[in-house]
């Protein structure tokens, strides 16, 4: 068959299947990410059907998917929100980093993947899925809850940490030495600070530069700017994704809202292809050997996230049920864990098993996270009620005023 025809047929079939999977995910109320990953596993190396024609396209589209994911993440926050979030929640953020980075890093060391593997796996287990968390908060009607700002502040901190972490990761994966690494960290910190300052003072100018009333012009401006900035960032070894993230932060106000609306369908398409591309590169037969580790890691990091949220909510003066809700909302891992694992696997600096472990881990956490968020409340209620039973005579309306 003509290679072009083959590519089109494969691509069409895959995208169509993704549509079906997304619909299924919507029907049962879960995140589509694990289903996309499973789809990728089924089509890729060692899967049910082997698709070779679309490999090149899937690879480039996946890269664009990452850029769009990070760009939209940046668009979600204004620089002012990031700065106040950082100021208010850095203690919780640091605790979050320590508690959730170490389990992943530890397992990588245990499995003999070295320092690079440890830094990658630490990132995978550290970063919560802000997409899943935001959806859980909205779906469960918790927008007005008091613990919600606490959860969001931690997510903001994590996303900013990503802006420092990704350039470091990129440098380490490229195999630069300690000094080169320090240099990259320096550049990354300088760039992040510079962009925050520019966004705070001149955000409207950046917005003006890409803004247009014509949605076609606007889309092309945005996408062009994002790819350009990502490309330049990549050339400077600051990680393409972080370039896009910083651009998203610099764009603010009404322009940011319109940009979100216009980019959403593109992001959905390319991000879906990114997840599939990641699955394509993972041989399903490598998953069963690491499944035990994935389960252990899932359990440990679910507990550590719960502790993080519990502690942060307690500091904010929130009662016990709210503390558990805050912790459970953070459990889900998703898109950014795969972004990190994807970077590592593409660079070839880590063993193939890492991709398998990351896939299995994200599969588990993307499913467990929303479930935990939903069921933590009734579970806590049952546990809290039983010791209080003897006091049934106390007045029912014992709330504080």
């Amino acid at each position, binding site marked *: 068959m003509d290679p072009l025809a083959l590519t089109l047929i494969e691509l069409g079939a895959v995208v169509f299947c993704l549509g079906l999977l997304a619909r299924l995910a919507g029907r049962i109320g879960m995140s589509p990410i694990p289903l996309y990953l499973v789809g990728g596993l089924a089509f890729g190396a060692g899967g049910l059907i082997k698709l070779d024609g679309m490999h090149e396209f899937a690879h480039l589209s996946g890269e664009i998917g990452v850029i769009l994911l990070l760009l939209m993440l940046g668009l*979600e*926050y204004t620089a002012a*929100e*990031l700065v*106040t*979030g950082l100021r208010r929640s850095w203690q919780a953020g640091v605790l979050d980093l320590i508690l959730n980075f170490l389990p992943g890093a530890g397992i990588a060391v245990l499995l003999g993947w070295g320092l690079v593997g440890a830094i990658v796996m630490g990132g995978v287990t550290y970063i919560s899925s*802000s997409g899943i968390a*935001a959806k859980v908060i909205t779906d469960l*009607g*918790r*927008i*007005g*809850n*008091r*613990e*919600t*700002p606490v959860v*969001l*502040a931690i*997510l*903001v901190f994590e996303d900013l940490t990503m802006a420092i972490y990704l350039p470091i990761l990129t440098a380490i994966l490229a195999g630069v030495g300690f000094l080169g690494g320090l240099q990259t960290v320096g550049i990354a910190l300088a760039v992040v600070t510079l962009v925050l300052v520019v966004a705070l003072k001149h955000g409207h100018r950046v917005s003006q530069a890409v803004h247009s009333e014509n949605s076609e012009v606007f889309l092309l401006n945005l996408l062009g700017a994002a790819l350009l900035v990502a490309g330049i960032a990549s050339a400077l070894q600051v990680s393409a994704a972080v370039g896009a993230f910083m651009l998203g932060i610099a764009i603010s106000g009404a322009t940011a*809202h319109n940009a979100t609306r216009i980019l959403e369908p593109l992001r959905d398409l390319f991000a879906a292809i990114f997840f599939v591309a990641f699955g394509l590169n993972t041989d399903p037969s490598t998953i069963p050997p690491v499944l035990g580790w994935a389960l252990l890691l899932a359990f440990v990091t679910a507990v550590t996230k719960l502790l993080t949220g519990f502690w942060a909510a307690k500091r904010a003066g*929130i*009662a016990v*049920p*709210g503390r558990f*809700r805050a912790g459970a909302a953070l459990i889900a891992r998703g898109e950014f864990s795969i972004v990190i694992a994807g970077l590592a696997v593409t660079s070839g600096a880590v063993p193939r098993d890492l991709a398998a472990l990351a896939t299995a881990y994200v599969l588990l956490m993307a499913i467990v996270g929303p479930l935990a968020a939903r069921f933590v*409340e009734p579970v806590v209620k049952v546990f809290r009620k039983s010791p209080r039973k003897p006091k049934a005579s106390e007045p029912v*309306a014992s*709330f*504080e*005023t």
Partner: protein
Amino acid sequence: MNVDETELPGLGVRKDFITASGRRIGVVEMREGETELFVSTWDDPDTCQASIPLTADEAAALGNLLGGQHIAMRLAEAHKEIPGIVTRQFSITADSPFTNQPMGKAQIRTRSGVSIVAIMREGEVVPSPAPDVVLHTGDLLVAVGTQEGLDSAAAILRNG
């Protein structure tokens, strides 16, 4: 009244307060322009019993209902000393003949002797509206007059 304002990064701004009965009640003004109305449960002020998404129009209508009641009560209080004077609220529905028309066109004072003392619109008060104020669907007119005058004013607003 002490209203707390809390930033919700990526979502919007939450504004709420604790009622005398111990419930937390408030709104989240979402970035995209919708409003989420919520009220806490009685036993845990951290969580919400109900969280109701409202469109901009619905939020404005609800604001008018709540604010209009307040104004009408205050006016009624002020007019208690004068026998025969009553305060009443009229809402402008989409099918009213004076929707998108200046209020003066209805000639309410000339025809019924009733005074429109305020218009509640999108949660805000337009006090002593001039005849050239254009009426919109969802506006709440606060009217003062006699019982009969108010009846005929209602008829004017409904039927023209």
